[in-house]
């Protein structure tokens, strides 16, 4: 029977080509727009360390003096170097790392390349294992290198391509800030979205091109780049360990999410010790958020992207209402035909199914076209200069969602018109013929 209804539906749709095209295009536009924005939203709100993010925690504590203090204030986003180094020495997590952004000058050992500037990340060795960073060649450095302030570096795949044409460069050397560093590891493609570990800079930008031991970077006074906040007048280098400035991020990996309470207690204890020693002035103020909670708190998904998603779904709604209206008018115009079919023995259910099939065909055609439009829309997003642009592409999950949305849109749009059609009283229709 369904085959017959399908045939009827196609005949009916063919009879009114312009109208059918209008309905299909309207649904396609709505679905195309909503899938484009939904995909961008989905990509930007994803889990950057899947399978592990509930065990990764971001540490905050408030080391500022009482100036400008208000109760319940959020502690600074970053920690001081002294606190970061102390927590790292205590090593209470399974893994932990302190880190900060920087920039270094590189003098390539190649005739065709002039010196250029690199974005760098100064960190302790656990960053790589803790964040599941994929390495193409070599490995991260170890405790010894952190302790010895060794001249070692892990470089990005892009930098390895640029300097060594993608060959295994581990064991080789690069010259950074006029110092020779040994390359111990080369990253594979790693593009966490958002760039969660340091949200003070570009939130969806690419990761740094070179990773160096933090201890080494301080010994060589490599330049810091990022957000620094100081709260009292301080004479001297603001990146010194005792400086009243927050500029570093501190991440810790725990064995299980349940260990967070213990770790928080440790932080509170640390804070109270510092208070007792007179270093901290404020009432105990620490935060320990897991990765996804932290991203949510920071509202990393740009508000424009949220607005766009809302807009697209409102647009889809208008397109659907449009289609419902047109289908309704179309179905009711066939009241005579329905009356005849009912008089000849078709049940209300038969009529309902027949018209739902027609509506679903419209919805599916719109969905397929909409998928094409979404693909086009995402291509357009990728041409945008936004830092997240290159991340926007369809994946299997979103493909399935599109298909489901199209099907739902078609059935939903057909439900009311088909219901009205099957309620038609055959007697009146036959009389009025």
């Amino acid at each position, binding site marked *: 029977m369904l085959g017959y209804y399908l045939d009827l539906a196609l005949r009916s749709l063919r009879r009114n080509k312009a*109208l059918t095209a209008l309905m299909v295009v309207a649904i396609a536009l709505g679905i195309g727009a909503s899938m484009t924005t939904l995909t961008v939203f989905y990509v930007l709100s994803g889990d950057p360390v899947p399978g592990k993010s509930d065990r990764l925690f971001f540490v905050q504590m408030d080391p500022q003096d009482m100036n*400008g203090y208000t109760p319940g204030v959020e502690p600074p986003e970053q920690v001081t170097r002294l606190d970061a180094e102390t927590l790292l020495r205590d090593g209470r997590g399974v893994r932990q790392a302190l880190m900060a952004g920087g920039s270094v000058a590189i003098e390539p050992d190649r005739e065709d390349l002039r010196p250029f*500037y690199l974005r760098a990340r100064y960190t302790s060795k656990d960053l790589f294992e803790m964040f599941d960073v994929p390495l193409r060649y070599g490995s991260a450095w170890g405790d010894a290198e952190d302790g010895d302030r060794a001249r070692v570096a892990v470089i990005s795949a892009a930098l390895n391509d640029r300097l060594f044409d993608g060959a295994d460069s581990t064991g080789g050397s690069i010259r950074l*800030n006029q110092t020779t560093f040994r390359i111990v590891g080369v990253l594979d493609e790693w593009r966490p979205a958002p760039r969660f570990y340091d949200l003070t800079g570009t939130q969806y930008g690419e990761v740094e091109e070179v990773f160096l031991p933090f201890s080494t970077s301080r010994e060589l006074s490599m330049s810091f780049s990022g957000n620094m906040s100081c709260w009292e007048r301080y004479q001297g280098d603001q990146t010194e360990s005792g400086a009243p400035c927050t500029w570093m991020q501190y991440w810790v990996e725990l064995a299980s999410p349940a260990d967070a309470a213990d770790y928080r207690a440790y932080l509170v204890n640390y804070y109270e010790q510092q208070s007792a020693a007179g270093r901290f002035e404020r009432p105990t103020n620490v935060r320990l958020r897991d990765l996804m909670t932290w991203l949510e708190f920071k509202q990393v998904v740009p508000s424009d992207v949220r607005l*766009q998603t809302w807009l697209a779904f409102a647009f889809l709604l208008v397109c659907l209402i449009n289609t419902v209206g047109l289908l309704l008018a179309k179905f009711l115009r066939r009241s005579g035909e329905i009356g005849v079919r009912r008089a000849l023995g078709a049940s209300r259910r038969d009529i309902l199914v027949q018209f739902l099939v027609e509506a679903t065909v419209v919805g599916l055609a719109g969905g397929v076209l909409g998928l094409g439009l979404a693909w086009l829309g995402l291509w357009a997003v990728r041409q945008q200069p936004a830092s997240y642009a290159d991340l926007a592409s369809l994946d299997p999950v979103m493909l399935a969602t599109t298909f489901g949305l199209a099907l739902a849109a078609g059935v939903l749009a057909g439900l009311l018109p088909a219901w009205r059609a099957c309620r038609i009283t055959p007697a009146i229709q036959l009389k009025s013929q």
Partner: protein
Amino acid sequence: MNVHPILATLRRHKTAAGLIALEIALSCAIVSNAVFLIGDRLDRIRQPSGLAEAELVHFQLVGITRVEDPEAQAAEDIAALRAVPGVRSVATVNQIPFGNSSWYSSLNLEPEQQNPTMQVTTYVGSEDLLETMGLSLVSGRDFVPEEYVEFQQAQSDPEVVIPAVIVSRAVADRLFPGENPLGRSVYVWGAAPQRIVGVVEHLAKPNDIGGPSSEHTSVLMPVSAPVQYGINYLVRVDAGRRDGVLEEGVAALEAVNPSRIVLEDRTRTFEAFRDDYFQDDRAMAWLLVGVCVALLVVTALGIVGLASFWVQQRTRQIGIRRALGATRGQIIGYFQTENFLIATIGIAAGMVLAYAINGALMGRYELPRLPWYYLPLGAVVLWTLGQLSVLGPALRAAAVPPAVATRSV
């Protein structure tokens, strides 16, 4: 035109008419908010910075080797840049509006104050900075050479006194409303106060940190820009010579010291910085325009589609009316009035919805309330859209010959 028969007909097509009205309501609500958002973005994109934007280019360099006397090198750089044809003035600077870096500081009115009076952004640079930026002084004067302090000294020597500050009008109005700010003391940098020696009309903040850049909570201080690691030059040129100066300027700077890296993405015209800074707003404004157009087109096509159906459905009745003496104009008028009634219901609902959406957006985006004149404007747009959409089907209805009434019985 008697509306009773129209209302009677509409009552028989409640659902279809209701759907069109709903579509019009949603379009009206979304389009009026979208147009409002577009206006908001355009205001943002067009905000004045206070600088002579069309005449400015910016250079940024970073060193590879450590320089013995960076201040001397900066002086040499400035001389080299001044020698480039078309250059009018040159200054070192720490930050520019819509640039990539920003300095913030708290401003106090008392020496030992618990809570800062306000947050300001601090512009510092070499002696010709005010002139180079092209800022317009509302009152007071530029800094005099004796007031300048070297950055390294200001940073490390607690005894050093920075004697003067120039504030934006926004800062002056906030600190001393209705009073003359000149000669008043503020504490921005160091233990000693700074006296306000000048007020500039506009000076945008570098970015939106701590409030929109259009707030202009900015001050200028007579401190040289840091030159230790990287160095920024702001150069005011004849507008037509910007690209030439950029090219020749890089060559001149490399001649001073070749072992430096010129950062290409920071060595550009001021307008390029502005374009980059507002690119997301521009993209969003265009996207909103696209949504508005798409919504109006879909709504118009929906009206055309439904009206066409009704015309087909009522062909016989139209024929009868024509046979009974109705003119073509009356038939057209019937459909136009019908559309007007549906549109009016939709628009009325749309206005309520528009305010509801605006209320939700106000909470999230710090937007002001939708100005009242958007409502009549939106109503006129949708009424016009409805009338134009229904015109085609109405004309087709008017073309129905009276003979149809007799033929089809």
